[in-house]
């Protein structure tokens, strides 16, 4: 599978496996996991990708990553 398909698959897998774990907010936990282990370029690629194959939790997680990126951009001026 190509890189972007692979990243989407990974994000969905993370979401699926974390879905039953004890977290206050699952999308936030998934986003934190991605941020902890993925490079900036991988995160940029999934943010830029077609989001239709993302599961609901993974989609929200990517949106959280969008928000974090936007906040960083604001901070950076």
């Amino acid at each position: 599978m190509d890189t972007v398909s692979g990243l989407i698959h990974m994000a969905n897998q993370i979401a699926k496996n974390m879905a039953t774990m004890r977290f206050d907010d699952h999308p936030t936990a998934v986003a934190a996991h991605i941020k902890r282990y993925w490079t900036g370029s991988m995160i940029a690629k999934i943010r830029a990708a077609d989001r239709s194959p993302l599961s609901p939790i993974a989609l929200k997680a990517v949106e959280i990553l969008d928000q974090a990126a936007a906040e960083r951009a604001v901070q950076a001026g």
Partner: protein
Amino acid sequence: MGYEPQADFGTPQSKSDKSVTLTIDGHAVTVPEGTSVMRAAAEAGGSIPKLCATDNMKEFGSCRLCLVEIEGARGTPASCTTPVAEGMVVRTQTPRLEKLRKGVMELYISDHPLDCLTCSANNDCELQDQAAAVGLRDVRYGYTGENHLGQAIDASNPYFDFNSSKCIVCSRCVRACDEVQGTFALTIDGRGFDSHVSAGTTIDNFLSSECVSCGACVQACPTDALQEKSIKEIGLPERAIVTTCAYCGVGCAFRAEMRGDTLVRMVPWKDGKANHGHSCVKGRFAWGYANHKDRITKPMIRKSIDDPWQEVTWDEAIAYTASELKRISAKYGVRALGATTSSRCTNEETFLMQKLVRAGFHNNNVDTCARVCHSPTGYGLGQTFGGSAGTQDFDSIEDCDVILVIGANPTDAHPVFGSRMKARLRKGAKLIVVDPRRIDLVLSPHIKADYHLPVQPGTNVAVLTAMAHVIVTEGLADEDFVRERCEWDGYQDWAQFVSGERHSPEFLEAVTRVPAADLRAAARLFATGGNGGIYYGLGITEHSQGSSAVMALANLSMATGNIGRSGVGVNPLRGQNNVQGSCDMGSFPHEFSDYRHVSDDKVRKQFEDDWGVTLDPEPGLRINNMMDAAIDGEFRAIYIQGEDILQSDPNAKHVEAGLKNMECVIMQDLFLNETANYAHIFLPGSTFLEKNGTFTNAERRVQPVRRVMEPANGGYEDWEVTQLVARALGLDWNYTHASEILAEISRLTPTFAGISWERLDKEGSLQWPVNDAAPNGSPIMHVGQFSRGKGRFMVTDYVPSDERSGPRYPLLLTTGRILSQYNVGAQTRRTANMAWHDEDLLEIHPSDAENRGIKHGDWVRLASRTGETTLRADVTDRVAPGVVYTTFHHPEALSNVVTTDYSDWATNCPEYKVTAVQVALSNGRTQWQEEQIERRERSRRIITAEAAE
């Protein structure tokens, strides 16, 4: 040190806390209760003659040489079988004893060849020593009667010979095979004068027998009857240096016995705390690769992977390496570079490689081969316990009442620990095996698993959740332990989750294919059978739910109170010698040593201050992501130390595509391996015999590796080559010895704070954490409290793999290892271990074979959605119907061409254990195999420095 055989106290050390004082030859001696008179005398500096006794086996009392006189006792009891008693008065040298011993020795010598001067055991023969000790001067019986002097030599084993004419039938070899190794391959055949040692049935020789060539019998033999061929060829060693084996994660300590600069033999060190004097066929005998003709000893470069290699000087190679790295960094950016460390290299070498990437490449694109084996262990145990390592020492098995082996095959992959496990089982511990294959532990001599749960590949989490279901719903959980030691709320969530009917063994039976009744019984046994210890391997981690399965194991151990003392715990059996160490040293792209994240400002500043550089706070690429990025044109250069990613990593075509797309592939290795076919720079590596450093084994034991010979590559240990590259890139590194790197590791790594070269030299080994809280190390972790404080239960729902069998690919392939070969076989394929396993075979159940018209030994085509290869079939019911199995030791089959890109959700550890495949009769190699052969042949062309001139 000079050459001295290790002292032999005759019988094992007593573990009693009580002391007994007796008198031996007029001297008061105090020893633990249960000690034999023989051992007490030896510990007091005396020496009672002996032949059948040796201190790693139980007393036997057959040779009648060790007789002593004891005041108040009748006759002359054997000192090996007589335990000490308070106030006992023993005499070891009296005229009566001398006469008796001389008479016994006469009988032995009357049936023994008197060819001492030409015997390969001359000067290393206990019979010779004891004959001298008893003062034997003549043999009254003569030598003309019936004897065994003309026996044929069994030279079938590639590493040792059995010469029956030199055998004194002391049974030490038989007992070693039984008690130490646990294989029961040898026996004493015949009666009385016709008694002789036999390897199996009368038609067997050592090679065809059940013998696993661990060497225990050779080590135990007091004469030349069982002797290493290397001793016969080279002669006796002159000196011995203690070092650590470079094969599996058991970390056996060996004496490298040398004659000049030639290694004569590797003898397991009795004081080694991981192996206690035992060994396996790899560590004991398979070291011939170190000076194999295939070793590349001169640096080589080439512009294109289609060119022949050109030998160059070290200066030229390092300058070219640095110039290429600088060029690519300038052209594509710093993140276009990366590296992999090796779990076969030392801690010091691994630490320097990650330092090179972080400080010299200016990114965090460093990963380790542990990515593809035990990365889920780090994640799973980190989440639940707070420590990314196994919880126990190996000695813990002695206190284990119920052993749960899941996804591991210790007798093949961790043979020395496997033998200890078998010894414990023979003493009565119960055994649960969860494995798709009927591994040897399920049924072998004197071992029978209480339960074998033949799990369907990919369903470990379902099995473990079902076990948890039984434990919780039947009220078998240790709630007192959980309340005291774990997060109670988390436990309640977890308990509620696993109690759901959909997690019952009955509900999940269709998924796991494990009979519900067996699973229930196994769960009850684990929860109620006393100390429960979990031992697992890559059959747990190498799944899309590898991390979940590790957490599920941690849940089980916490729920049953099986953590924090001897005999319990969660124990990952590490595949390679330094998997634990490579992870500890900061080889993962998101963390520094001691598992601290690169984004932690405080930690990063500590490294920045020490190294004098600015470090990247963003995680780097994992190895599989590096290949993706290479294919995308973003990642252009990789420095690979001690790995063969083309053969070992999944989806070999994907790896090939990534490597082909890079502008600079730097290999540092012993041999031109499959990855080197795509390399541009080859930096010759050094073997473990040629370097100083440390390895950390599966029980967190840091042990010294000592240089016993000069590096064949011109004198460079691997860390020195890394330093040359670093200096050429402008880093001011000036290490002169591995101990200086270890000092830096200790300075920057809290769990290593108390470890130093000097301490390791003095104490032999230390188990991290070694710090102010645990100055002498930590054999067992999480005693009293978990590393993270309270243990954390993690809900692990079963999520089926996306890799599914179906009409086109109806079978499930799982891969693994075999005793005689190691990993990609780069080392063991270049030894006589090829006698046992010279090709990868495909195990297939008889019914699956019959359905396809496949007979044992047929060439078959193994095809998946990813690729295909051919290999020969091994038709066996060791695997269940619907499951096939192969190894990945040989590049000819290169079985990873069929494994997929799917990986563990948390760590990207590849899902090697689940690949949907089809198997059919084959009429020849696949096109890809043909291409690889051609590529390999092209890549073996070398223009020597002399030819270039």
